[in-house]
């Protein structure tokens, strides 16, 4: 994963370590930051992301909640209105569906509804699950629903460096932020500076420069898109790989500049296509380009996520299918190259914990 930092003496963290560090540093900086959610104080500590925080900051600032997603979201909003900065954690994004009323009818709207009087600085962390039979109700990626609603911010970092910076930015931001994590990124590592830093919202990361095609990968698909780009070198296709990082606001400028250069765009979302983030990006590009570009999108199959491993694999794009699609967009539909590797090693190697 390329980050801006070129230190030789690199400090390497995993994604959960980066998330934990961001949380801890912000909690030290601002005693209004609190962490809440089902299991945040338990021995597994949400994949370690909240480990030790309760010991450090006490039971009032780091607390387990009852299984009450709607009420606890409303509670976080009210606390935020009184000056706290709650981070509400959900171990699966699927469960956030219980909190849509408070998130969309209240959190997203209060600032506007009250003419600017009442900001709602909450961060909602939630995990997209995958692999080992997560199945229909533990695998959903609902970021596009939140992108749809004005007043919410949505970020989905794909590496530890971005995760730390985006989380710090989210905590400091005065708006409700949906902070989207992916279970398969938990073992990923990258350089992460120790000092706190905030990534700006609305700034995409160009992971690799290229000239033939632009590939955008969202969340975990940023990893697969990057892998696909490496495979594509084999057939001489030069792919520019972009990770939007911030989905709302979206860095359309960087995307348009890239597409202007390559003339081709493949968006690979870690989610369903219909009315998804990929639809949005394609539509925005189509509205804004003058000369014709070739546009495609990939993502979840238009079905419920099946549990059985064989079908589950067909549900997701992977580096191989991405590379094949990109190659065909560049070389024409008849191109029949298939890279040897499939990619998605995180998925095949995954064995929990869930």
């Amino acid at each position: 994963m390329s980050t801006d930092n070129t230190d030789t003496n690199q400090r390497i963290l995993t994604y959960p370590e980066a998330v934990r560090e961001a949380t801890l540093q912000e909690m030290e900086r601002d005693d209004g930051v609190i962490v809440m959610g089902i299991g945040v104080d338990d021995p597994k500590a949400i994949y370690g992301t909240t480990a030790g925080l309760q010991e450090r900051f006490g039971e009032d600032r780091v607390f387990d909640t009852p299984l009450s997603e709607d009420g606890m979201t409303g509670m976080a909003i009210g606390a935020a209105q009184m000056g706290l900065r709650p981070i509400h954690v959900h171990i699966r994004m699927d469960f956030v569906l219980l909190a849509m009323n408070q998130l969309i009818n209240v959190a997203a709207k209060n600032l506007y509804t009250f003419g600017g009087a009442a900001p709602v600085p909450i961060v909602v962390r939630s995990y997209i699950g995958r692999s080992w039979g997560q199945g229909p109700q533990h695998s959903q990626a609902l970021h596009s629903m939140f992108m749809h609603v004005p007043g919410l911010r949505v970020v989905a970092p794909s590496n530890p460096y971005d995760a730390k910076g985006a989380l710090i930015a989210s905590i400091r931001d005065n708006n409700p932020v949906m902070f989207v994590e992916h279970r398969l990124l938990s073992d990923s590592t990258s350089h992460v500076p120790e000092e706190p830093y905030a990534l700006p919202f609305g700034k995409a990361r160009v992971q690799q420069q290229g000239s033939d095609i632009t590939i955008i990968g969202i969340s975990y698909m940023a990893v697969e898109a990057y892998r696909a780009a490496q495979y594509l070198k084999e057939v001489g296709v030069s792919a520019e790989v972009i990770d939007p990082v911030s989905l709302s606001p979206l860095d359309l400028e960087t995307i348009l500049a890239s597409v202007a250069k390559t003339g081709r765009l493949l968006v690979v979302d870690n989610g369903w296509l219909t009315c998804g983030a990929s639809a949005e990006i394609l539509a925005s590009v189509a509205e804004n380009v003058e000369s014709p570009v070739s546009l495609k999108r990939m993502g979840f199959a238009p079905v419920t996520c099946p549990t059985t491993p064989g079908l589950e694999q067909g549900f997701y794009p992977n580096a191989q299918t991405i590379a094949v699609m990109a190659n065909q967009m560049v070389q024409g539909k008849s191109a029949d190259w298939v890279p040897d590797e499939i990619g998605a090693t995180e998925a095949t190697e995954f064995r929990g914990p869930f």
Partner: protein
Amino acid sequence: MPDPEVIQDLYRSMLRIRGVEQRISDIYWDDKIKSPVHLSIGQEAVAAGVCQTLEPKDVVFGTYRGHHVYLAKGGDMNAMVAELYGKVTGCARGKGGSMHLIDLEHGVSGTSAVVGTTIANAVGAAYASKLKKMGIVIVVFFGDGAVDEGVYHESLNFAALKNLPIVFICENNGYAVHSPILSRRNSDNICEHARVYGVTAERIEGNDVIAINERVGKAVAAIRSGESGPHLLEIMTYRWMEHVGPGEDFNLGYRTPDERAPWTDSDQIDGLRGQIADDVVTRIDAEVLAEIDAAFEFAENSPFPEPEELYAHVYG
């Protein structure tokens, strides 16, 4: 008996609410208030009785039927009326309208048009108050319909679990829109239900402003002193007007004038008026009328928001 000053305060508070809402009802036909209005006429005693017990720093939350709560807590009347008119001088710059009132300076933390939402928000505010030792008591007003919602259960549970400084005020006016309470639950036992969560609960009958004031006052004092955790007061009251809109609704047939009669007969404003010296009544009546006249004039004369305001306040 409470002292005369309190009686006067309560009288004035209820009169302001009644006066503003009556005026709204009177002028609604001229279409200047282009906003659904849920009048609290008949329920003034609840907001007045409760809010009189609060300090300015205390914080209240309410519902779309929230004029009375906003005014009783000390919300700016000019800004409220202007809000109904959709003017930029409104408490939400016209963006909220009647269902979304706010006045943070006076501890009005917001009202909502989705039933039940502010109950959870209030619990969060109470959590913040406790965590930061603000000494602020939170009060949330909601109807008997809100009790049906899952979020009510979740909110009571959490408030009791964390022993939060909050008073739940259930304004039981017997109906959710046109549905009587016993068509929505098995028994008339909201207090009993609340107690099971560990919330101290009591019903106050008869829309009695003095009783409301006294009993809520005790609850607030107990909470403020740290002696006790959350309380719920179920206050029996009655909506005189239609659910939404400026008029009456006996034509709909779901309730009768006879049902309302005991409530109008025991009108709390009339009741207190009889307990205050005539000259004082005259003075208060005149002051309130002048305040209301001024508020509607303020609203009439205020400008609408500029078109660019459409794009302001989406993000902060």
